[in-house]
């Protein structure tokens, strides 16, 4: 866009020196391991390393389970976020804290707690096993459960924040126009928080994709059934460093591609 008339260009104030330096350090801190990974990657052997049956299985399993886990996080997390944000009830703060626990729990501990609840002798798991013969540990469903457990808090936080920030008058206006609560939620609230919902779902998905500790502890490790990409990397590490790095690069590549392509649109507010 050219302008012949002197339209003054906005001069940004220069970034304070300290801020710039620290930001560069932060970038280096985050970027160097990734650069190291890319440099150590066996680019020549990539295709053969990544097309082994085990690698392809791990990739397929990871994508399927992480997407299912993110979906589960949305289906269960959205109503929960709505309840916490919109309704006052005794113990609300405790519930909010509870939801955030998977964030601070070491993933392996998370896996252990899942066993106590859903394992064969677990609180709920024992009935699933004794009455229906359903065994969640060592199953793909168990992987989805473990991944959803660690991913859900991301969805809930993002959505709860969005719900708090939208003007309550839109929902009030909808109610005065005769809309029942479910219609208000669907036609007014949800579209207004859509960008944050998508961002939350993406974060949840990325977290689910990278989950290791809870998966291996709760769901176990078996190719094709429960051996997701992170578990495959761990197993490969003991045998072939090249294979481990190759798989890591794939993991990195998928996440990076999706996050970068959508980040601008959905985390920066509505277009």
């Amino acid at each position, binding site marked *: 866009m050219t302008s012949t008339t002197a339209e003054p260009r906005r001069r940004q104030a220069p970034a304070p020196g300290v801020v710039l330096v620290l930001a560069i350090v932060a970038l280096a801190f985050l970027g160097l391991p990734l650069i190291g990974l890319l440099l150590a990657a066996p680019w020549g052997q990539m295709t053969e390393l990544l097309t082994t049956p085990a690698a392809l299985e791990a990739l397929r399993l990871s994508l399927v389970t992480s997407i299912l886990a993110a979906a589960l996080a949305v289906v269960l997390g959205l109503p929960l976020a709505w309840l916490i944000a919109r309704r006052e009830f005794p113990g609300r703060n405790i519930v909010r804290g509870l939801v955030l626990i998977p964030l601070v729990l070491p993933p392996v501990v998370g896996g252990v707690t899942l066993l106590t609840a859903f394992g064969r002798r677990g609180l709920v798991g024992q009935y699933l096993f004794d009455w229906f013969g359903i065994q969640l540990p060592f199953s793909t469903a168990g992987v989805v459960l473990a991944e959803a457990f660690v991913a859900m808090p991301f969805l809930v936080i993002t959505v709860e924040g969005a719900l708090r920030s939208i*003007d309550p*008058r*839109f929902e*009030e*206006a*909808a*109610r*005065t*126009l*005769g*809309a*029942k*609560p479910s*219609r*208000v939620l669907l*036609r*007014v609230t949800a*579209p*207004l928080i*859509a960008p944050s919902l998508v961002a939350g779902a993406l974060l949840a998905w990325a977290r689910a994709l990278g989950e290791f500790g809870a998966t291996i502890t709760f769901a176990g490790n078996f190719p094709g059934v429960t051996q997701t990409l992170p578990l495959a990397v761990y197993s490969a590490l003991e045998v072939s460093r090249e294979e481990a790095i190759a798989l890591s690069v794939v993991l990195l590549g998928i996440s990076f591609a999706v996050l970068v392509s959508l980040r601008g649109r959905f985390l920066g507010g509505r277009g």
Partner: protein
Amino acid sequence: MSVSARIVTRVGSFTLDASITCAPGETVALLGPNGAGKSTVLRTIAGLQSLSAGCITVGDTVVDDPAAGVFVPAERRRVGVVFQDYALFPHMTVRENVEFGPRSTGLPVTAARHWLEVLGVAHLADRRPPQLSGGQSQRVALARALATEPHLLLMDEPLAALDAATRMEVRGHLRHHLAEYRQGTLLVTHDPLDALVLADRIVVLEDGRVTQEGTTAQVAAQPRTDYLAALLGVTLLRGRATGGVVACEGGGRLVVSDTTVSEEVIALVRPQAISLHRERPEGSARNTWHTTVTGLEVQGDQVRVSLAGPPPLVAAVTPAAVADLGITLGAEVWASLKATDISVHPA
């Protein structure tokens, strides 16, 4: 449908206790300062808030009665609301906004289309709220509320979001539309002009209580509270009248023309009725006194000069007069006020 409401709410230390009615076809303005409780009145009638005590009836349906355990939520009351900032759904077009009500309640969308036409915004049907001007938004918000054919229309500060120029124009159009609307309208405002132009009746709400109500003409001519008087620009004095002389509370006396009234009274003095002089004036004015200037304030093309009492009064003169007479803070002047220019009413 008429609405009859006895509204009692207690929030913290603030208690609202007011009775409001509105007949079909009537436009009632709820006038009062900020914090008086006007929005609460609106929200309780709309069903967005519940009463602590009292009763609200729309038509013959009781919609809120805490004592009887009755509460009809907002979505089931046929009460239309136009919010102060309009709250138009930004993710829907104008048409979708206006049709939202009928579609939510299963009513035909013909009413929606009708109101879009009547309010002159049909050509904007495919635009989105961020693309509309203030005046256009207001009309779309009104169309949206009316599209559900509500039994009562509530408007919260309908013109506050508009700039001064637009406000004048929109006020005129709004008056016209409200006159056509068959049901009752209750509008909340702090701007006296809105009340005077748009309403048939005015209810004055101050600090949670109704301090005055009556037809627009009555209330405008005889404000009974300091707030209202100040709002309308007149000085209000209280005192006791005896044989044509009012002894003011706080000191001072005024000679008035009405000799029949004899009791506690409210005396209203328009600032424009007071003349200022350099020396004791001659003439028929029955009230002349020597005083000092305690304040000067420019208001539009007039200057309001505050005069020391008792009783303290405000005179409105031209800037030229201020210059001519050398009126400054603390200056000594003579003031005169005709007895016939003071309106006196029983308190």
